[in-house]
C-alpha cells in the first residue's frame, strides 16, 4: 500500500500570536503584527517595524537553558505534540524531528563577540547554544524522540524544505512520525545583513504593492506533526490536512537574487503539481513567499502567471502579520495553509494599498470564505532555493 503523509498536529509562535487559534484570528483580521524594533540597541535600525516577540519565551518552552530560537522551537513543538499525541508517542524510536534553522544562537554569539573585541572577555558560555542544530536537539530531548534529528539550513526556504524532507523519511519507511518546521530569532546579523542589502522597508513590508520597498524582519517558529496515514489511522488521530505534493529546485542564477522570470519557482510548482497528480486548475489558493522586495514579488508573480495563466487562483502573502521569519517562514506559511483548509477560507494580503501592475496575479485583499480542496505554499531563499508544497483537505480522496 502506498504510504501517504498527513498532518495531525500544529504549533506556532510568532508576532501574530502564541497559538494556532490566535494566529488564525490575526490572519483573518489581516492584522499588522509589526511593532517598533527594540530587541537590542541599534543606532541605525531601532524603531523599524519588525515582528518581534514580547512573550516570556523560557516560560512558554519550559527549557532550562537555550537560545531564543531554541525556546521558540520547543514552545511550538510542544503545541504540535500535545495536539497530536496527548497520550504519548506510540514508538519513540520511529519518531524524529527535522527543523529548518538559520540563526540558531546568533543573538548570544553576537554578545560574546562584542565583549571579546571590546574588552577581551572570553565568555564562551554565551556560545553554548550557537549552532542551528541546538533547536532540533532541544525538541528531540524535550519530547523524547529517538528517530532522525536533523537541521536544514537553506536560508529562508529552510522550514518548508524541512517539512518536505521529513515527509520523505516517512515515505521511505524510516519513520512513522516526524515533527517538522522551522525556527529563527531576530539577531544583529540578520537585521544588519538585510539592512546592508537595502532590502528593508521603513514603513513595514507591503507585499505586491506598487510602492513596496522591501521586507520587515520577524522571529518565530512553527512545527507540524507529520505522520504516515497508516499510523494516524491506527491511532484514530484527527487528520488536519494531507501533504499531497512537493518539489524543490534551484535557480542557479545568483547568490541572493531570484531569476527574473522565476524559472526555478515555475519548475518547483510544476514538480509539486506532478507529484500530487494535480493540474493548476485544482489549486484554489496560493500562499506566496511574498517578502515585499521588488525582485522577489515580481519573480514570484511572473512564475505563478506562467504556470497558472491569466486566471490565477487567489494569492496572498501573510508576512505583514509577523514579518519575514527566515527559516520559520515556510513552516509558518504551511501552517497557515493548513488553517485555510480547515476553515475553508483564504487569509488576506495585509499591507497592500495599490497592487503593482508588474505582479499580474489575483492578490487576495480581504478575508474570504471559499471552498478549498488543494492549496499551495511557496517558499524561497538565498542561493536561488525554491520550494513548493501542496496541501489537500483532510477528507479528500486521492
Amino acid at each position, binding site marked *: 500500500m502506498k504510504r501517504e503523509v498527513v498532518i495531525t498536529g500544529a504549533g506556532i509562535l510568532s508576532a501574530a500570536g502564541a497559538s494556532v487559534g490566535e494566529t488564525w484570528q490575526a490572519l483573518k483580521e489581516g492584522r499588522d503584527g509589526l511593532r517598533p524594533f527594540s530587541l537590542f540597541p541599534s*543606532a*541605525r535600525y531601532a524603531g523599524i517595524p519588525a515582528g518581534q516577540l514580547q512573550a516570556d519565551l523560557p516560560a512558554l518552552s519550559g527549557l532550562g537553558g537555550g537560545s531564543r530560537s531554541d525556546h521558540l522551537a520547543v514552545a511550538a513543538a510542544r503545541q504540535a505534540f500535545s495536539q497530536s499525541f496527548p497520550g504519548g508517542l506510540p514508538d519513540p524510536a520511529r519518531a*524524529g524531528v527535522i527543523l529548518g*534553522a538559520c540563526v540558531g544562537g546568533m543573538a548570544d554569539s553576537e554578545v560574546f*563577540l*562584542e565583549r*571579546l*573585541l*571590546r574588552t*577581551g572577555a*572570553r565568555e*564562551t558560555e554565551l*556560545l553554548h547554544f*550557537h*549552532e*542551528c*542544530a541546538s533547536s*532540533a*536537539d532541544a525538541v*528531540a*530531548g524535550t519530547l523524547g*524522540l*529517538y*528517530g*532522525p*534529528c*536533523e*537541521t*536544514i*539550513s*537553506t*536560508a529562508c526556504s529552510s522550514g518548508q524544505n524541512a517539512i518536505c*524532507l521529513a515527509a*520523505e*523519511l516517512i*515515505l*521511505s519507511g*524510516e519513520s512513522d512520525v516526524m515533527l517538522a518546521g522551522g525556527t529563527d530569532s531576530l539577531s*544583529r*546579523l540578520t537585521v*544588519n*545583513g538585510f*539592512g*546592508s*542589502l537595502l532590502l528593508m522597508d521603513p514603513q513595514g513590508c507591503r507585499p505586491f504593492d506598487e510602492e513596496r520597498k522591501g521586507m520587515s524582519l520577524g522571529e518565530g517558529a512553527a512545527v507540524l506533526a507529520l505522520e504516515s496515514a497508516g499510523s494516524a489511522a491506527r491511532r484514530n488521530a484527527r487528520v488536519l490536512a494531507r501533504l499531497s505534493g512537493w518539489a*524543490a*529546485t*534551484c*535557480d*542557479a*542564477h*545568483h*547568490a*541572493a537574487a531570484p531569476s527574473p522570470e522565476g524559472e*526555478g519557482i515555475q*519548475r518547483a510548482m510544476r514538480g509539486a503539481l506532478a507529484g500530487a497528480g494535480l493540474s493548476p486548475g485544482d489549486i484554489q489558493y496560493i500562499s506566496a513567499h511574498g517578502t515585499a522586495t521588488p525582485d522577489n514579488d515580481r519573480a514570484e508573480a511572473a512564475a505563478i502567471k506562467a504556470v497558472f495563466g491569466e486566471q490565477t487562483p487567489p494569492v496572498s502573502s501573510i508576512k505583514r502579520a509577523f514579518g519575514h521569519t527566515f527559516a520559520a517562514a515556510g513552516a509558518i506559511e504551511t501552517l497557515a495553509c493548513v488553517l485555510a483548509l480547515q476553515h475553508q477560507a483564504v487569509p488576506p494580503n495585509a499591507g497592500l494599498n495599490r497592487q503593482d501592475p508588474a505582479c499580474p496575479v489575483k492578490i487576495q485583499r480581504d478575508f474570504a470564505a471559499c471552498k478549498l480542496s488543494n492549496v499551495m505554499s511557496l517558499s524561497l531563499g*538565498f*542561493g*536561488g*532555493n525554491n520550494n513548493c508544497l501542496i496541501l489537500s483537505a483532510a477528507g479528500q480522496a486521492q
Partner: protein
Amino acid sequence: MENENTGAYILKAGLVSPAGGSPEQLLSAVPAAPVPLDYPGQKAALKTAGYRCDLSEAKALLGPMKLRRLGRLQTMTLLAAKKAGLSAEACAGDTGVYMGTGLGSMGETAAFLENMVLNGEEFPKPANFINSVHNAAASSLALEYAIKGENITVAHRDISFDAALGHGVSALAKGRLKRAVVCGADELNYYHLLAAEEKGLWKDGAGPLRPLAGGTTRGTSPGEGAAVFLLSSGAAEGALAKVLGARTARYRYDASTYLDPAASADFLCGLLAACGVKPEETGLLLSGADGDCALDAVYLRTAAELGRRAGRLVPHGSFKQYCGDYKAASGFGFGLAALLLSSGTVPPGLFPNGTAAPGPVSTVLSYTISRSGSHSAALLRSL
C-alpha cells in the same frame, strides 16, 4: 541478500584535506602532527594545534576574480568539486546538491560581525552577509555547474554529511533525480577554536592524533576539509564504489557508558539489514574516533559488539588522524572508504600502531557518533 535496486553509484570523488587531495596521496599518507594555528591580529593567541588545508591551488583552479568573492568554506568546496572533475555536462538535467556542514560559513559570519562591532552599523559588508548563510557553499556549486535540482544543506553537528548523503541517496532511489552532488565541508575558524579551547576540548601539545590506540587523554585536535561526490542511480564505467545506504538517529545517553554498545550495534545492524547485508559481511568499520579516550572507548565497545554479532572480529579503523576533527569529517572518511574500495588498497595508517591491516575489503561501514546525542552511518560496497 543485498538489494541491487537500492543505493547509488559513486561516479566521482574530490577531496580537499590536510593530508592532500589526490587518491595516491591519501592512500599512502602517513598520519602527521597538527600544526600551530596562527590568526594574526586576534585578541587572544590560540594554544591549539590543528590540521589545516593548503588552498594554494585555488587561485589557479578557480581563478583570482572568483576567489575574491568566496569565503573559505565555499573555496574549499569548489576546489574539491574541481578535484572530483565535476562539470556542467556531468551535472546537466536532473541533478541536486546535498551539502553537510556543521558550522557553515563561520569565517564570513565572523567577518561581517567583526566589522559591525568595530566600525558600527554604517559601513556593512553585504558580500560577507550573502556568504554567511549555511547554504552558501551549496549555492556556489549550483552556480558554478548550473545545477538546478534540489539544493539542500544539512547543518546538524557531526552527522551533517551522513544526513545529507541519506537525503541524496533517497532522492535517487525514488527517481526524483538522476544524479546527486553530495558534499561535506567545514572550515577552521578562530572563534570556534577559541571557544572549544576554553572548554578544554582540544588536546594539549602538538603530537599526532592516534585514535583507537589506547590513549588515556581527553580531547582531540581540530581540522577542516571538503569532500565532493557525484552520485548516480545508474551504474557507469569508472564508478568508484556503491553507497548502499545512510541513516541517522538519536541515541539514549547513558551516564556510565555514554552510548550503550548494544544500542549502537542495533543501529548499525539496522542499516545493514535495510541494505540486505549481514553483519559478518562487514569488511571494515571506519569510525569517527578522534583520539579522545572517552569517545574512542565507545567506538571500541561498538566494534566489539558488532564483532560479537558477526561471529568474528570486524576490523576497525579511523581517519581523523589525517584530517583532524571537524563536524563534516565523515565526508572525508566516506571519500577514503570509496577510494580504498576502488583501489583495493587498505591504507595501514587507518589502524592504530601494531594492528595489521586487513586484506582487501569489499564492504565498509562508516560510523559517526556526535556528542550531542545523534549518531549516523553509511554503508559502501565495492563494484
